[in-house]
């Protein structure tokens, strides 16, 4: 079925902008990114939109469609009514560069703040051996395509710009969890995740999980387990007592 869709696309830059109305042809099986490309090709050649793989794997085309953070390339036009007006804006947590392109460098800065994988010093490259049961949890987090939709939707930074220096965001709290749960990582990341990366700011309202295009259970499998590990180390006198007796205070949760 071919029909003409009504689109409202945010056009502008840091100096200001507005939602602009367009009408664009839609064909069977197309996604929102297809429509934006047709708009670019036929009406507004200067429309800025970031994209790459068009297969939901590169994480480039993150934006907000009718106010919901989504990948442009994975949102089918068929989920909307033909008469519905589609509003497309850039991600609203990050500074805008132009039109639908946001400056996501906040995330790169947060990535650099996390100490990298730390294997035992006596283990050389090529000597890593681990069992599937031990790496299963971390592997789920490796599915992340870094689209930053979770970072964009998290109200801790979306609604509170002042929290950005203190809060790594769900994507990077999940990165800490990935390393903390890794069987060959020997760094103790629990204190840092609370003090340096702002885990305590997370109130587990699960928006990060809701918008993840890879279906990663960020809250249940990464953030809450990390909160529990922090509770082990900071807020559980019984665990503290047990570790004191068994002299395991230096590396608590490595079972």
């Amino acid at each position, binding site marked *: 079925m071919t029909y003409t869709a009504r689109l409202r696309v945010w056009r502008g830059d840091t100096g200001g902008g507005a*939602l602009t109305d367009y009408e664009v042809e839609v064909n069977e099986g197309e996604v929102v990114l297809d429509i934006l490309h047709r708009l670019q090709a036929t009406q507004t050649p200067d429309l800025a939109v970031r994209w790459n793989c068009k297969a939901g794997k590169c994480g480039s085309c993150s934006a907000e469609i009718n106010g919901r953070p989504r990948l442009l390339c994975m949102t089918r036009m068929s989920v909307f009514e033909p008469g519905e007006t589609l509003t497309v804006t850039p991600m609203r947590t990050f500074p805008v560069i132009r039109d639908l392109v946001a400056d996501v460098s906040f995330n790169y800065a947060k990535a650099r703040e996390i100490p990298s994988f730390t294997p035992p010093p006596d283990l050389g490259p090529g000597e890593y051996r681990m069992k599937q049961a031990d790496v299963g949890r971390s592997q789920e987090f490796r599915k992340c395509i870094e689209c930053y939709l979770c970072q964009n939707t998290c109200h801790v930074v979306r609604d*509170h*710009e002042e929290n950005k220096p203190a809060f790594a965001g769900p994507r990077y709290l999940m990165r800490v969890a990935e390393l903390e749960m890794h069987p060959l990582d020997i760094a103790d990341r629990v204190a840092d995740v609370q003090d340096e990366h702002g885990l305590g700011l997370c109130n587990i309202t699960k928006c990060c999980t809701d918008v993840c295009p890879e279906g990663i259970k960020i809250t249940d499998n990464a953030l809450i387990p990390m909160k529990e*590990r922090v509770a082990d180390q900071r807020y559980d006198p019984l665990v503290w007592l047990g570790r004191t007796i068994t002299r395991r205070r230096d590396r608590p*949760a*490595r*079972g």
Partner: protein
Amino acid sequence: MTAQVRGVAAPTRAQVPAGTLRTDRWWLLPAATTVGLLTFVVYGGFRAFQQQYFFADERYLTPFYSPCVSLGCASEPGSAHFGMFLPDHPLIPYAALSLPFLLVFRLTCYYYRKAYYRSVWIAPAACAVPEPHAKYTGETRFPLILQNAHRYLFYLTVIISLINTYDAIVAFRHPDDGFVVGIGNVVLLANVVLLWCYTLSCHSCRHVMGGRLTHFSKHPVRYRIWTWISALNTRHATFAWITLGTLVVTDLYVLLVASGTITDLRLVG
């Protein structure tokens, strides 16, 4: 300066003339959650302090009065399985040893936190909908830092669930008729099974049982238990709501039988 100016309307972000552009009924879920939680709190509060109609057919004890440890429990002989020692006062629930802990267990539960942060506290009401608060410190300060005590409430709830299980089992024995099975037994048993599902699917339970380990392969039994609990944990929110419902239904059934409004149907005995 409002929260919105600080948030999505902050300088350098795309200047969109609306806090949210969501067109779906995003307000419906938080509104329904508020109504659901409020209904339970009002009903539970009323029943906890009613101090009447809590023991039916000489064997059905409602979970709102378990364990019945007040001197007032003497009004219903057989309802106190663990002694009576708390003073009989209108402001002291007969199950004052369990109700506060059960309430705090649910208050600090990771699912209920999400539910009431979104619905009651509106932080945020829905994803990509601006929250009204000018400042946000999450769970870093008092009193919300106390949410970290959830595991202790879990331990206590396991004990209380054992007591509920005991109540459900002894309810099969009538003082005069011996072993009997009535509709009330089915209701009590279903309630206690679902309470265990909720309790064992808790995130703290998942962590304590195996989640805190780094090398699952060295602890195959705990890994297996963690796997089971993880499967249950995916339905934790569902059990959270179902058990609110079964608690009310169970209590209501006991109330109706105890007050003589309905008669318990005997299936066996």
